[in-house]
Structures are given as C-alpha cells and as structure tokens.
C-alpha cells in the first residue's frame, strides 16, 4: 500500500470541519437547526428549508454498500502498486441519500452485494491527513451484521 502517495483531499471552507473531525477519528454530518435534516457533503445552506444554521453531529459510522467498482487501470502512477482495488459507495445508516466513498479494506469484492453492511475505518496517512475507508461489518452469532459503533 502506498497510502502516503495518494492524492490529498482538497478541502474547502465548508468541508474543513468535517475533515478536522475525521482527523480525530470521528465521523460526522451536518444537521439543519431549522428543519432537522441531516446532510452530507458539507454545504452552508440546507436545500430543504434554506436554513443557514447547522450543527455537526456524530453518526454511527455504519452503512450499506449501494454500488462499487474494482479498479484495474492505473490512472495515477502513485497508485500503481495498489491495483486492483475496490471502491465502494456507502449509504449511511442515518440517511439513505447521504453517500460516502472509500476503498474497501479487509474485504473480498466478490462477496459484495447491494446492501452489504460496512463500517468506517480511519487511517492516518500522514501528519495532517486522515482518510475514511470501509470494511465489512462484523457479524453477531446469529449471522446478522452488528450495529456497534466504531
């Protein structure tokens, strides 16, 4: 793995608090103070009620895979030693329309299906940046995915 060579996120003024929380290994989304709607990615204005006030609230870090790819082509030389790698699009358990992306760790892409339960993993890649990645959610003895917090 050449995590240290990966592209760094180009954060903006809206998203900076989200990335700071990720650095603390906390997964958060915004919640509109006016109407209560949770939202991600970071935006200054609620697109339901146009409210400007929001809170950053923690989420469980669990979700379900909606769709995924297994990437083979080397689009970026710095990731040449990582192919093939799997990228998942995850719907957060707190909201169907909140999607987060990340690479699949400790999992076999052949086992993926829509609804596959995953949980967030935080990986510190250098002194400033932490990335959110996803791994299969551990199963309880009954075979159901647990909902434990990370």
């Amino acid at each position: 793995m050449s995590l240290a060579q990966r592209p760094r996120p180009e954060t903006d003024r809206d998203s900076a608090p989200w990335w700071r929380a990720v650095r603390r290994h906390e997964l958060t989304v915004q919640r509109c103070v006016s109407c209560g709607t949770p939202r991600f990615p970071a935006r200054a204005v609620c697109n339901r009620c146009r409210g400007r006030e929001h809170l950053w609230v923690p989420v469980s870090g669990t979700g379900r895979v909606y769709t995924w790819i297994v990437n083979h082509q080397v689009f970026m030389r710095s990731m040449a030693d990582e192919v093939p790698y799997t990228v998942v699009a995850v719907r957060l358990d707190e909201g169907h329309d909140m999607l987060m992306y990340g690479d699949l760790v400790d999992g076999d892409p052949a086992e993926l299906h829509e609804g596959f339960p995953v949980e967030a993993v935080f990986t510190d890649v250098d002194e400033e940046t932490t990335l959110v990645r996803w791994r299969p959610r551990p199963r309880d003895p009954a075979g159901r995915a647990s909902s434990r917090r990370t």
Partner: protein
Amino acid sequence: MTGFRDRTAIVGVGYTPFSRDSGVSTLTLAADAILAALDDAGLTVDDVDALATHRVGDSTPPWVVAPALGVPEVSWYLDQFGGGSVSHSVVAQAAMAVASGVAETVVCYRAINARSEFRMGGTGRAPAPVFDAQYQAPYGYFAPPQQFAMYARAHMNAYGTTHEQLGRIAVAQRANAVKNPRALKRDPITLDDYLASRWIAEPLRLLDCCLETDGACAVVVTSRERARDLRHRPVLVSGAAWGGGDSFLSGAGSGMTGTDFTVTEAARIAPRLYAMAGVGPGDIDVAELYDCFTYSVLVQLEDYGFCAKGEGGPFVESGATALDGALPVNTHGGFLSEGYVHGINHVAEAVSQLRGAAGDRQVPGAEVALSTAQPGYVLAGTSALILRSDP
C-alpha cells in the same frame, strides 16, 4: 414553447480528421472544422456573426477563434464551461440567439486534443475542478470510466443488466463504424472480442470506453428562412432542453447525494424536450445517444422513453438499436468507434442522416432525430436536441 420550434436550422457540418495525435493546436482544429462547416453550407466567414463552444480549460475560446478567422463582427458568442453534459446546450443556445434575433449565423464548434494533450483520465493536465472530488480522489476514484462503472454496477444490481448486454452496444456501434469512412475504429468486433477485452474498472472493460480523440467538429445554425436559400435541405431545430431536477446543484452529479444512480437527468428533461418538438419517442427515426461508455447509451434508452426503466439491457439484446432495427442508435459508430469530440459529432451525424447523406449507414427515410449529451452524471445536468428535416 412552440415559439422556438422549427424556427432555426442547421445548415452546415464540418470535421477535421480524427486521430490520436493531431500535431496542431486546438485553435487550428477549430478553424479547420468551422471552415469546413461553412463550406458545406455554402457560406463564408463574412456571413458569420456569432460563435459558440464549450470547454473545460482544454480548448480555444470564441474570442480567440473569431479574430483568428477574420470574422468581421461578432454580435453574440458563448464560451460555456462544461463537458459532455452541456454539449447540446451550445447548439440549443445558438438556436435561441438566432430565434431571438440577436444573431443571424452562428458557428458552434468543439475542438480538443483529448489524446495528445488533455486526457480526461487525468494525465497531461490537472483534472477539472469537481467540487466533491475531495471525498473521492483520495481513494483512487476520480476518472470517468470509474464513475460510469459505479453507475453501471448500480443498474446491474437493480435490474440484472448483464455484461453481454453492454457488449451488444459496443458490437452494434462498431458495425456502424465499419460503414463510416471517418471512423477511427473500422474493424468489426464480436461479443467474444468484447468479453475478452481487459478490465478498466469492473464492470467496464476497454471496449466499453470511448476513444480518446484529437479532432474538431462544427455545425452552422441560422434561421429557417435563410436556410432555405442555402445548399442543403435544412435540418430544423424542433426541440431543445437542458438543465436538470432538484439534484442539479446538490451534488448528485458527482454521485454524492443521488437517491437512485439508475435514473439520469435525461428522464427529467425528456418530457420538456418532446413537448417542445411536438413528438414522442415513437416518432424518433434515429437516435445519437451520448456514449462516453456503453452504459450511458443503455440508461438513456430508458430515460428518453424508448423502453421501460430496467429494460435497456433486453432492448439492446433484441437488436432494436442496430442500423436495421426499430431505433438505429449511434449510426456513425459513436464515441466508442467513430471518435470522441465531446458531443457535437452526434449532432453532425444526426444532420447527415436527416439530409439523407449518410452513405452506407443511411437510415432509409429518416426524418426525425434525437441527439443527446452526457446524461447528467459527473457534472450535473444534461442537454438534448430533436432535429427534423424541413418538410
């Protein structure tokens, strides 16, 4: 709505050769395509009073092209930011400028060295600034083939769409390109060839992807009245639509908040488009559907109403989209086999078909055509045109 319908016409089309390395600037490509389109129309640079293009920091704008060609006076121009999704809005806005009286004769062009200079895959330049790339690029997810693979997988999950169905699109379009002297790829391929081609990003293979191409294409738009005095049977701009729905600026275009990846903005604009032109899907004789990847063709067959949602796979498997099928699609071979000029070569091919001038690949009696832009993935919104031959 009907104030726009059939008021303007496309009267000329022009191309540069398509290649992997043009060896010239995008300014030279633009100039060559524009001059060819004017010549095709029986017009000269002195007749031009407006220019329109789109680009993503990768081409030469109208305010450089116009003086380079010696256009005497520019009364309107459009330098639209954007990629494939806005391609057809450029022609639509040119038609609006003519219909409103602001301009009389507009040349629309797109000139790119998409192989030798600015490759969309990320080499040769910094990627275009996409707002939500920060949440994706660190995981090695940023290139168009990856994004469309993600959407194609969602369609497979939801509707059982198969690799073979995607492959049928590539095979059918190559068969059309065999009949197109301009096409970059003219060797026939089989479904086995498709299935044997290497993975780019599963579920997409090499033969699911369009051809990175150097080249330019231009079309000339003027009023219907003026068109009748020119060289060719006019091709009328019957309908145009662009934009998107409530997801337009909310991030769905970058795959961040959309609730359903299997429905595109094409489904949103299609009713407006058909209403403006006064036709329905059953009236379309030929469809040039944006094919950056095979999957974008499949999903647009559904979203423009040629089959039900989820039935795109069986529809292409039936042979309906072949040159001799009920709805010939991408008669020139499309971006997969003719070449990728980011959208406008679909408009030019539709014009050739409606003139009855498409040679060996002519669809007999084609009178109404649909031509479409990238359906709204990646950068939000889409655009499309319905064209018809002047009765």
